[in-house]
């Protein structure tokens, strides 16, 4: 029943392969729970080593769906701003697994942990981002896909990952999916993977700081682990470790403004979104591409299957952007060339004044022959998938709580002046992106050019 119509998993050149015959089911059932004969390690620049002892974890890493994460960058378009940021979601996923593993070890040592949850938690840590696609955020904006839904679909659907998880027991895959979806009954397990200080954020902050090469963003992760205490359904932090937690919050703050919300990265994101949008519009108009976007067709038609989704990665997308520089459509051609050659849009602060004259501005763009649907856009802080720490005054979100010496709990920003001052002042940002080169190339006597330059204060 566990292995309907499929043979056991065997290893060829270190990779799991499904074998055709079906006569060793029982052996496999026990194997998923088994330890590896020998601990495996991955060398990692952030954690030094990632340690794997369970066969199930090792097998999951070997699946096609997980290996695909090697071809999806953790930071999307950020490499156009910080050239080091080429690291993949594969490394991050391993990192989150390693952090979860080490925290569980610490909890276990203090008898604070229910060991029957260990494997579920480790699988959830490893697989939490498995549904990410190429440049996820832009894809989600244009095509309405949701990477979290794909994560669920991969864990519960017809995949190698699903079959492996089910070998660990009936309903095991559902438990893993529930932890990742944050609807699992044991809230402590959920908090470890996703909360205001979780394995996910700890890994990506340090990893992204390392690969972008920025000098802020570091904090003492091991110190934080040591002051973590399970308290009912959440994890709290001993007051004595407050300064390590403050550093973490500062890191999140710095990384948000300096890396995640960097205007050049956001500009690349805008151009990328416009390319996808243009390609979709052209496809639906029946445009004949020189290079048919075969892997994207079901996506354009709004009915992409899991199988098709799993075929997409950033190499595929970059291939099309590269070849579409030769398409007949001037907009698609130009946008792709901008992305590939990093001739991104420039930006100005989007002020109320510009907002009030927006129709006029769009009109001037149209008059100048620059289609505002593709060459004029506002990007807001709410468009970013990253967030800053907020105390969550109405309890919409679980805040970070400190465990006081008398056993009571206090919200972090109430105790820490540093955190209080960066969470107290709410800051939002809007920028208007446009191709300055195109505007400047307009003839000087052009009325449209004069109007655009006046409105955007271009001298």
């Amino acid at each position: 029943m566990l292995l309907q119509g499929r043979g056991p998993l065997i290893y060829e050149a270190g990779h799991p392969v499904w074998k055709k015959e079906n006569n060793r089911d029982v052996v496999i059932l026990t194997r998923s729970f088994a330890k590896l004969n020998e601990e495996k390690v991955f060398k990692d620049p952030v954690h030094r080593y990632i340690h794997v002892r369970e066969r199930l974890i090792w097998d999951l890493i070997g699946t096609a769906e997980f290996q695909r994460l090697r071809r999806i960058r953790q930071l999307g378009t950020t490499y156009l701003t910080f050239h080091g940021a080429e690291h993949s979601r594969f490394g991050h996923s391993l990192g989150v697994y390693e952090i979860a593993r080490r925290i569980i070890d610490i909890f276990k040592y203090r008898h604070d942990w229910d060991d029957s949850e260990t494997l579920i938690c480790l699988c959830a840590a490893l697989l939490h981002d498995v549904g990410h696609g190429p440049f996820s955020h832009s894809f989600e904006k244009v095509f309405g896909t949701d990477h979290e839904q794909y994560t669920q679909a991969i864990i519960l659907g017809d995949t190698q990952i699903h079959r492996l998880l089910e070998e660990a027991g009936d309903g095991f895959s559902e438990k893993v999916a529930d932890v990742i979806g944050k609807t699992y009954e044991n809230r402590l397990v959920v908090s470890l993977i996703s909360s205001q200080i979780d394995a996910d954020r700890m890994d990506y902050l340090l990893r992204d700081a390392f690969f972008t090469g920025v000098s802020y963003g570091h904090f003492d992760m091991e110190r934080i682990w040591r002051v973590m205490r399970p308290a009912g359904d959440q994890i709290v932090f001993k007051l004595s470790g407050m300064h390590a937690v403050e550093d973490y919050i500062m890191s999140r703050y710095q990384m948000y403004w300096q890396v995640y919300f960097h205007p050049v990265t956001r500009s690349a994101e805008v151009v990328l979104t416009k390319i996808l949008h243009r390609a979709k519009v052209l496809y639906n108009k029946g445009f004949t591409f020189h290079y048919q976007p075969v892997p994207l067709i079901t996506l354009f038609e709004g009915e992409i299957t899991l199988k098709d989704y799993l075929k997409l990665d950033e190499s595929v997308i970059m291939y099309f952007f590269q070849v579409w520089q030769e398409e007949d459509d001037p907009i698609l051609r130009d946008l792709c060339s901008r992305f590939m050659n990093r001739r991104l849009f420039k930006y100005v602060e989007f002020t109320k004044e510009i907002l009030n004259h927006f129709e006029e501005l769009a009109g001037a763009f149209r008059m100048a022959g620059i289609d505002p649907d593709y060459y004029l856009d506002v990007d807001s802080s709410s468009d970013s998938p990253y967030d800053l720490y907020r105390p969550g005054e109405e309890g919409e979100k679980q805040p970070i709580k400190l465990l006081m010496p008398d056993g009571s709990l206090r919200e972090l920003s109430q105790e820490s002046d540093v955190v209080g001052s960066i969470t107290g002042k709410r800051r939002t940002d809007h920028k208007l992106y446009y191709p300055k080169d195109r505007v400047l190339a307009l003839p000087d006597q052009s009325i449209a050019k004069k109007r655009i330059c006046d409105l955007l204060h271009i001298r």
Partner: protein
Amino acid sequence: MLEDHARIAALIDQAGEIVGRKKLQKMVYILQRTGAPFHETYHFHFYGPYSEELSVQLEELYNFGFLAEEKEKKSGTLCYRYRLTESGETFLKRYSGTLPDLTDLTEKLNRESVSFLELVSLLLYFDQLPRESAIEKVHQMRKNCREEDIQRAFVFISALNRTLTAGTAGA
């Protein structure tokens, strides 16, 4: 440009006033799930569906001066009271028709308590599960949830769906 912001502003305008960020969160979620054109991404967040994107959009509307936000204490906890400012109304004028008239529905939701809307959102979040499993999930996520409230929430949801079908048919 800023259409999603405009829809949120329009919702607050139709409601007149919304007390509590959490209430706004739940109202937008319920409306989105019943087919209204809200595009904010929602994920499960400990107590139910929550949208970080919506939270930031509210801050942005406030920072633009389109929203008035009054802090108040409501049964011991802090609450924010939202309504549109005059410049918010001017902003909204540029986007006529961006949100259909949902006044009846909005008022109906606004009359309910936050905790009831939370329960409705939870049931909607788990609506792909069989009813018994959904109820079990709700009990896991919300301790001390009364059976009669759950039943009322189910009735409320089917009434919502009816209102919406009637609304679209009339439009």
